């Protein structure tokens, strides 16, 4: 299940929006026109009220202008709903798949475990602490921990990964999930879920966004948007007496569609209001949030709350386990260091010979290295007697006719040499110390040929292999302002060597779960946010303490319960992607807010001359877009305002492009694109729409 870190991380993005998605989501979008559901979004609620008001006005005093505005005001609301519906639609599809896994199953309960008499009950009736048994072919009836046995389990219903996984009692691979299927053997499971709160239930609720809570940052942004809406509401409402005053003074000026003796027409006031309030970001805000969660789901990460996703963007410190995250799971032979005049070839040969039967990854790597460097082929094993590794001897080896070869920990092998009459040189000690201090593990190789003294041949240098591309990833993190800390059970010397090679900022050696928790507390005390991954039960306190705790799906249910995210792929390097998704979510919000506000400038240049050039001809000077007429100007502004929502739905769902870099660089780039772009784009857009609208007979 371990996935290698690749140098090019999966680009965050989900391709272009399928137009059919829009069409399919339309019924949902129309259903959302219900003001009771719109109420949660103050900006769009105001547009809704404006649309209702304009409709009444258009019915009482119909004109082509009025009806065009009314239609586009309603479209503005529908487009906003569409954005949300499309974002939700993706989650719904996922939820449907999950529901299939949640079939009604019959549980084989063991009421008097360890007695093995069974009772068949409905899975939904299982309570916490119940013990059930599952055999090959059974669907696991609920979440729990394996307390007896070992089995291979098909978890594809949840993870989408078809390769079966091993689940066994004790240790960190004991958790099983309801809805998954036992493929072989027999396991006894203690149920840990409460009824109706299974992992699958929670997953369905999450991907559907059923009870999606607004995140803290979303709430803050909503407050800002609501304030802007109130300011513009005031601007528009107070404009009426000002307009009446102006019109009264210029009594001779002819009435226009916008401004008559009674002041500005209601339709025009509503148009100005809708054009000014931040509808673009208001329409897309919830879609951005839903899509952010969805991007995580697509990467097989389940965030238990939107808050956790946001926190991921804020992370200052990443705690990464060494093994499996930074280094490949196991140590590998890196070089052969002969001593006392031994030939390197001879050492390699002896080392390979002693490792032929060694099935550990370290042993395999010695055979491979000897083959690569000295072209030593694997050979016949007939006639060889292998001596396996034991905790007592702390070495393994091979007995040939008239010759014995041993490899193992330095002290053990040196003792063996002395026991066989040899006198090991000091040189071995030097080499061993050098390897240890560089963070490697030395394995001493020695042999005794019958009739001669035993002698040490040399030392094999085993070392941790840092995954490819990790250094680059950590450099990226540093540019983003994130400190990486490697957690390892190794001694400080070894830890430092690997930390240096991998390029992490700091390390915690000989780490116990308590040390880990203490480190997180210390970082948080300094105001930093900490993210970590974990899978074991002893990781649970740290996972709970961390601001972003990603539990591996292979881990124990205690770990999964403690973390606020679960990675179904159980890939610890994914933490880095999670951070990027969190950042991307916030950037998308900020960029579209900037864009939305910057848009207003052009709209003023369209609408103010349209309203007032009749009474004050000097204001025609503000019509720098040279729009055809007051009516086309106002219509164009409103159409632009609605269309820009549709145009930005793909961006809201995909998120703005994010490349890890410093805050200054990100800000500069986004300000140019969404700030300056937001100022310029509507000038062009409104002008183009005006050119089209002016072709409609009876409008200009």
């Amino acid at each position, binding site marked *: 299940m371990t996935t290698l870190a690749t140098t090019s991380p999966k680009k965050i993005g989900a391709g272009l929006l399928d137009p059919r998605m829009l069409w399919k989501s339309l019924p949902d979008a129309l259903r959302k026109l219900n003001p009771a559901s719109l109420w949660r979004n103050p900006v769009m609620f105001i547009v809704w009220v404006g649309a209702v008001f304009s409709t009444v006005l258009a019915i009482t005093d119909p004109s082509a202008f009025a009806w065009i505005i009314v239609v586009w005001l309603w479209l503005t609301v529908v487009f906003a709903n569409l954005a949300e519906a499309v974002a939700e639609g993706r989650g719904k599809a996922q939820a449907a798949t999950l529901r299939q896994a949640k079939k009604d199953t019959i549980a084989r309960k063991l009421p008097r475990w360890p007695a093995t008499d069974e009772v068949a009950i409905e899975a939904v009736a299982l309570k916490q602490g119940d013990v059930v048994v599952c055999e090959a072919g059974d669907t696991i009836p609920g979440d729990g921990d394996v307390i007896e046995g070992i089995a291979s389990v098909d978890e594809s219903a949840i993870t989408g990964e078809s390769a079966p996984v091993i689940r066994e009692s004790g240790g960190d691979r004991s958790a099983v999930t309801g809805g998954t299927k036992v493929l072989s053997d027999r396991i006894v499971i203690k149920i840990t879920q409460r009824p109706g709160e299974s992992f699958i239930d929670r997953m369905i609720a999450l991907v559907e966004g059923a009870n999606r809570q607004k995140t803290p940052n979303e709430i803050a942004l909503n407050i*800002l948007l609501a304030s802007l809406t109130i300011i513009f509401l*005031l601007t528009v409402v107070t404009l009426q007496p000002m307009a*009446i005053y102006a019109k009264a003074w210029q009594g001779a000026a002819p009435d226009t569609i916008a401004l008559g003796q009674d002041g500005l027409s209601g339709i025009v006031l509503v148009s100005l209001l809708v054009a000014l309030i931040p509808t673009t970001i208001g329409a897309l805000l919830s879609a951005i949030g839903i899509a952010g969660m969805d991007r995580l789901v697509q990467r097989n990460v389940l965030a238990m709350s939107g808050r956790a996703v946001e926190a991921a963007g804020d992370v200052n410190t990443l705690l990464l386990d060494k093994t499996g995250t930074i280094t490949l799971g196991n140590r590998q032979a890196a070089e052969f260091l002969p001593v006392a005049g031994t030939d390197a070839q001879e050492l390699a040969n002896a080392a390979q010979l002693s490792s032929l039967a060694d099935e550990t990854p370290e042993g395999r790597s010695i055979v491979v290295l000897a083959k690569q460097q000295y072209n030593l082929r694997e050979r016949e094993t007939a006639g060889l007697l292998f001596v396996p590794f034991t905790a007592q001897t702390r070495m393994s080896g091979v007995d040939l006719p008239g010759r014995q070869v041993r490899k193992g920990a330095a002290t053990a092998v040196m003792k063996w040499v002395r026991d066989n009459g040899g006198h090991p040189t000091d040189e071995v000690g030097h080499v061993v110390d050098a390897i240890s201090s560089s963070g490697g593990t030395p394995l001493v190789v020695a042999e005794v040929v019958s009739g001669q003294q035993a002698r040490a041949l040399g030392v094999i240098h085993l070392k941790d292999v840092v995954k490819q591309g990790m250094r680059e990833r950590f450099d990226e993190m540093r540019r983003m302002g994130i400190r990486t800390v490697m957690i390892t059970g190794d001694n400080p010397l070894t830890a430092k060597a690997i930390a240096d090679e991998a390029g992490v900022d700091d390390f915690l050696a000989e780490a116990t779960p308590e040390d880990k928790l203490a480190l997180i507390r210390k970082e948080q005390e300094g105001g930093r946010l900490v993210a970590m991954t974990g899978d074991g039960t002893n990781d649970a306190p740290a996972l709970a303490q961390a601001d972003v705790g990603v539990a591996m799906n292979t881990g124990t249910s205690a770990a999964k319960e403690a973390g606020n995210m679960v990675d179904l792929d159980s890939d610890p390097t994914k933490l880095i992607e999670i951070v990027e998704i969190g950042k991307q979510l916030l950037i998308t919000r900020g960029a579209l807010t900037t864009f939305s506000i910057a848009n207003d400038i052009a709209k003023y240049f369209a609408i103010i001359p349209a309203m007032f050039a009749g009474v004050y001809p000097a204001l025609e000077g503000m019509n720098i877009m040279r729009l055809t007429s007051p009516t086309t100007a106002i219509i164009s502004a409103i159409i632009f305002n609605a269309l820009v929502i549709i145009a930005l739905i793909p961006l809201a769902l995909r998120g703005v492009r994010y490349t890890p870099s410093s805050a200054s660089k990100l800000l500069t780039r986004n300000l140019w694109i969404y700030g300056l772009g937001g100022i310029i784009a509507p000038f062009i857009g409104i002008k183009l729409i005006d050119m089209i609208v002016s072709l409609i007979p009876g409008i200009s």
Partner: protein
Amino acid sequence: MNTTSAGVIFVLSLIVALAVAYRYLGDYLYRVVSGSKHSAVERGLYRAIGVNPAAEQTWGTYARSVLAFSAVSLLFLYAFLRLQDFLFANPNFETGINERVFDHLAWNTAVSFVTNTNWQAYSGESTMTHLVQAAGLSVQNFVSAAVGIAVAVALVRGFARSRNGQLGNFWVDLTRITLRVLLPISAVAAILLIAGGAVQNFTDGTVVSTLTGGEQHLTGGLVASQEAIKELGTNGGGFYNVNSAHPFENPSAWTNWLQIFLIFCIPVALPRVFGRMVKDNRQGYAIIAVMGILAIASIALTNVFELHGAGTVPMAIGAAMEGKDIRFGVSDSATFAAATTLTSTGAVNSFHDSYTALGGMMPMFNMMLGEVAPGGVGAGLYGMLVIAVITVFVAGLMVGRTPEYLGKKIGAREIKFASLYFLITPALVLIGTAAALASGNWRTQANVGPHGFSEVLYAFTSASNNNGSAFGGITVNTPWWDTALGLCMLLGRFLPIIMVLGLAGSLAAQKPTPASAGTLPTHQPLFVAMVAGVVVILVALTFLPALALGPLAEGL
């Protein structure tokens, strides 16, 4: 030397003097508000009002102290104004003068001076006794300025402190700022003004024969001392009706320079205090840079509009000299107009109503900016910091983190206070103007059309932003105007102060996040430009329709 180069030298020398003030006055102010020692006089005062100077206040207590102090000041000043006839030191007037200070004028004037606005719906020399001018109005000139500075310092403490939510002690801040900063500088400035020809006496006036043979009553009084704090505290309430255009208040071009310097020196020095208190002088430079860019742009534009004045009268006589004094000329008058509205001073040395349409729009626009460049004493800094908080929020999102300013997270609570702060003044301006127009109260004015509209808009902009300058042209000493503008001044001062202190409280309660490469840098040119852009764009979006119906309709 032509007028343009004279104007340039005037402005450049001011900038140099203010750079010195930023550094040295700023450092002095920092020591005043951060020190722990109390002088004997201060200790006596604390004992007298029963305050423990070592006690720290939360934002709620600090706000209640500000409001209580201001409420007492308001009642006291109101009573003083109503009772002035019965008190001594009343040499200027004939008997029966009290009829001039009606209840609504007394309310308006009391609010005006307590809120640091100094909107004057009366003529000082013919309405107020020496005693009221000196012991009523001038005292408020000191303490209302000190209140503003204290609130700004409390907000800065919100950024600088962590975890305890304590903002210092209002009574200590008020006392120290008044005694150690405002009084000594005013004393020196008053002496300089006297040397420059401003009057300072207790005379009940001199009758002189004019060239045309008529008689004129020349009033005297404690002018120079009131003048000093009028500018230093960005108050703006003049002894005389025509304010700094009066030769007894502002006799010459160099006193004009001095007055502008006094207006700017504390608002300009406060960002230094900010930088020192948050232990990063670069943050102070960034804030003063935003203020400087906006101020210089505004002063330059006002000068351009006035010097190249369009319009019938300026074309006919060769320069836009209507409403300006030849002592100052076009350029120095324009600079003074910009200075008085970029801060919350509201003193005038020329008649803004007579400016060219666009030149007259600039003072209005300056006030609409929220008077943040550099703004009133204290009010400018806290206004600018609130805008910076809003900018940080949007910019912070764009770098992919929960926005933070100086390590303090800008979350829902902070944005709520900042947004409400930003909402209050535009709401007062727009609602006030609309109410005046809808209720027909605009009819007390001399002009109609776009210019008349500008006069109404200006009055409410000035009152709501606590500026106090007037476009003129409206008879505002009526019950409706006095009441409406009084409400705008009161709400425009204290509601924002509550929001600022609320913001300070929630910032001070946080623990700071250390800065990293992923943190939005708030000291770099990009951020400076962005804050300046946010100020201008937010204000433009709010007020553009109103400006279109006034100065733009007239001037384009």
